[in-house]
């Protein structure tokens, strides 16, 4: 039966892969009937949702084409000759867009007049105050920052609570709701990015369903905040630093093997530099991306330069191609040039073993009460030995904590049989901590933690793969 099943699965996979199989297995005939159904012609993806998805995951999709830019900016035609000359030197400055960096807010398109917050706005509920401190409306986005004050310390334990699940929205006068397209921050301060405002809209309302970064259920804070925001034209003396976009010239690309690590933007402020960049490399054969990478900056003397990774007002830059990984750094002036940026990536690979380990785990009737179980159980899976040290009950997930003297193991997959995670929280199965020799796997999230006697399955060891470095040099 096992051999038959394996053959069936192999044949089914071939069938799904578009390779017809000669097998006349009735199950495969049913599979063919399903595969030949024409359902795609009925699929009608909403264009508006598609556009919103594009903006949300990559705001650059709104960028104008070069010809559109030429039509709206005749002066650019004059500058093209200059651009061609610059291209011969290997690096060209992109002139099509006038980007500016506003400290605390970020990078904005200045091709249309900027609008800024008329005055800070506050709202207080149960002694907690939210203040919209800053905001800007530009041609490419709307950015709002707010601060939360006077949160009682005892309520600042989001790890013991279900985190606030809903993001703030921007409500326009006609009732249109803008969903968040980017941003970052913490429980005390948030920077929110939305789509650009329509022309002639000066008044919007920031709707905050619950406070991001805070608990939502067991330690709730006041909810449903509404803060009116008024925009006015930006003052002429507002500080806006210029942003230089760097793109390799066609000449350089044609003649030189392209460095997969590139710098895409440079910002010089009064006392620091901000660089953004990308790494574009294919996955090594048979390996997966662990998602773990490192950045290091050294100066002309080889000394480490201290930097801030992903400055809060820059965050995750928009990649210029779908497979690029992006980075941003901020460091003080005063270093010995040139600097060298080293980007390190760690890959992992899946062990092909189909072995599994099953064991029973009694979480009791009230897992939250126990919170942690010391197990110290040793297992061997696919000839690799490791120890399950403990299991912790978090508010909506279980965390399985492992160690091993075998430093080649990166992680394992863990499933609680019969309890598929609830996807609303985002994570699904294995959350891996990339510290060699020890790792944790979180199983969840769940609306309600599974309790009682649970059957746990461990499978698929993930092994440490290659570690690779790339470097790029830069000087002011």
């Amino acid at each position: 039966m096992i051999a038959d099943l394996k053959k069936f699965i192999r044949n089914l996979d071939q069938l799904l892969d578009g390779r017809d199989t000669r097998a006349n297995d009735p199950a495969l005939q049913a599979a063919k009937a399903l595969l030949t159904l024409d359902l795609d012609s009925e699929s009608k993806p909403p264009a508006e949702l598609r556009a919103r998805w594009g903006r949300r995951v990559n705001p650059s999709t709104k960028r104008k084409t070069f010809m559109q830019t030429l039509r709206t900016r005749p002066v650019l035609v004059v500058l093209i000759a200059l651009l061609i000359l610059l291209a011969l030197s290997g690096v060209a400055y992109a002139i099509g867009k006038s980007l500016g960096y506003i400290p605390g807010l970020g990078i904005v398109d200045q091709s249309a007049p900027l609008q800024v917050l008329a005055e800070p706005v506050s709202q207080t509920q149960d002694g907690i105050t939210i203040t919209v401190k800053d905001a800007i409306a530009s041609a490419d986005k709307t950015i709002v920052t707010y601060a939360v004050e006077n949160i009682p310390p005892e309520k600042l334990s989001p790890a013991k609570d279900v985190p606030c699940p809903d993001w703030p929205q921007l409500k326009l006068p006609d009732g249109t709701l803008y969903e968040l397209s980017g941003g970052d921050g913490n429980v005390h301060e948030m920077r929110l990015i939305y789509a650009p405002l329509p022309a002639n809209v000066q008044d919007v309302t920031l709707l905050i369903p619950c406070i991001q970064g805070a608990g939502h259920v067991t330690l709730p804070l006041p909810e449903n905040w509404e803060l009116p925001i008024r925009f006015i034209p930006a003052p002429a003396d507002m500080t806006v630093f210029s942003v230089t976009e760097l793109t390799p010239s066609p000449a350089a690309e044609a003649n030189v093997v392209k460095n997969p690590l590139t710098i895409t933007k440079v910002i010089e402020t009064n006392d620091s530099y901000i660089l953004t960049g990308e790494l574009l490399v294919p996955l090594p054969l048979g390996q997966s991306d662990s998602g773990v990478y490192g950045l290091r900056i050294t100066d002309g003397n080889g000394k480490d330069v201290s930097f801030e990774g992903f400055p809060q007002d820059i965050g995750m830059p928009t990649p210029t191609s779908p497979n690029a990984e992006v980075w941003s750094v901020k460091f003080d002036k005063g270093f010995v040039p040139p600097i060298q940026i080293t980007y390190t990536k760690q890959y992992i690979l899946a062990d092909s073993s189909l072995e599994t380990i099953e064991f029973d785990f009694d979480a009791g009737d009230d897992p939250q009460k126990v919170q942690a179980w010391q197990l110290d159980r040793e297992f061997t899976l696919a000839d690799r030995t490791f120890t399950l040290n403990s299991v912790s009950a978090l508010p909506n997930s279980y965390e399985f904590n492992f160690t091993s003297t075998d430093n080649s193991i990166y992680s394992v997959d863990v499933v609680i049989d019969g309890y598929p995670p609830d996807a609303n929280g985002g994570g699904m199965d294995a959350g891996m901590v990339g510290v060699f020799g020890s790792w944790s796997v979180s199983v969840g999230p769940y609306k309600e933690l599974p309790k009682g006697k649970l059957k746990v399955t461990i499978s698929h060891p993930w092994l440490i793969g290659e570690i690779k470095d790339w470097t790029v040099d830069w000087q002011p």
Partner: protein
Amino acid sequence: MNLFQRAKPASLESAFDRYYPAVFRFFRFRGADADTANDLAASVFERALSHIDQFDPRKAQIQTWLFAIARNISINHWKSEKGTLPLDDDLPQSDVPLEELVIRAEEKERVLLALQTLDNRSREVIALKFSSELSNRAIAQLTGLSESNIGVVLYRSLMKLRRQLSQIEVNHDR
């Protein structure tokens, strides 16, 4: 200074185009008509958008994440709306017997309706497998079944589906 962070894959950008049709097919296989399947597929991407910052590529592939959302939405939809076809193992609530509906339907609807005569677990595993070719491992993660069990369920479900289709053809020819 060494900063270790996790990278956000840019493949998110293409996820809408790649997976909307697959999510749509999932709802069709689960028994929704075309309009409802489009509405539900849109809901999946709306929900994914509102939680996109919580998506962690180390924890799940975007495809698996979207289907986990789709699975939840399908459960809630049929629980709250008593959708066009039952999700649970109950027989249909239509006055016309399901077998009769199947015979009347055109070829496409016939296959889809035959699918609805299977039990809930079989329908779900088939829908996940045939809408997007999810691996058995990913389906195991989504459903809580073991990976080897998925193969068995798929095999038995497809055998049952073939029998149903054969029966329908016999009845249809009469």
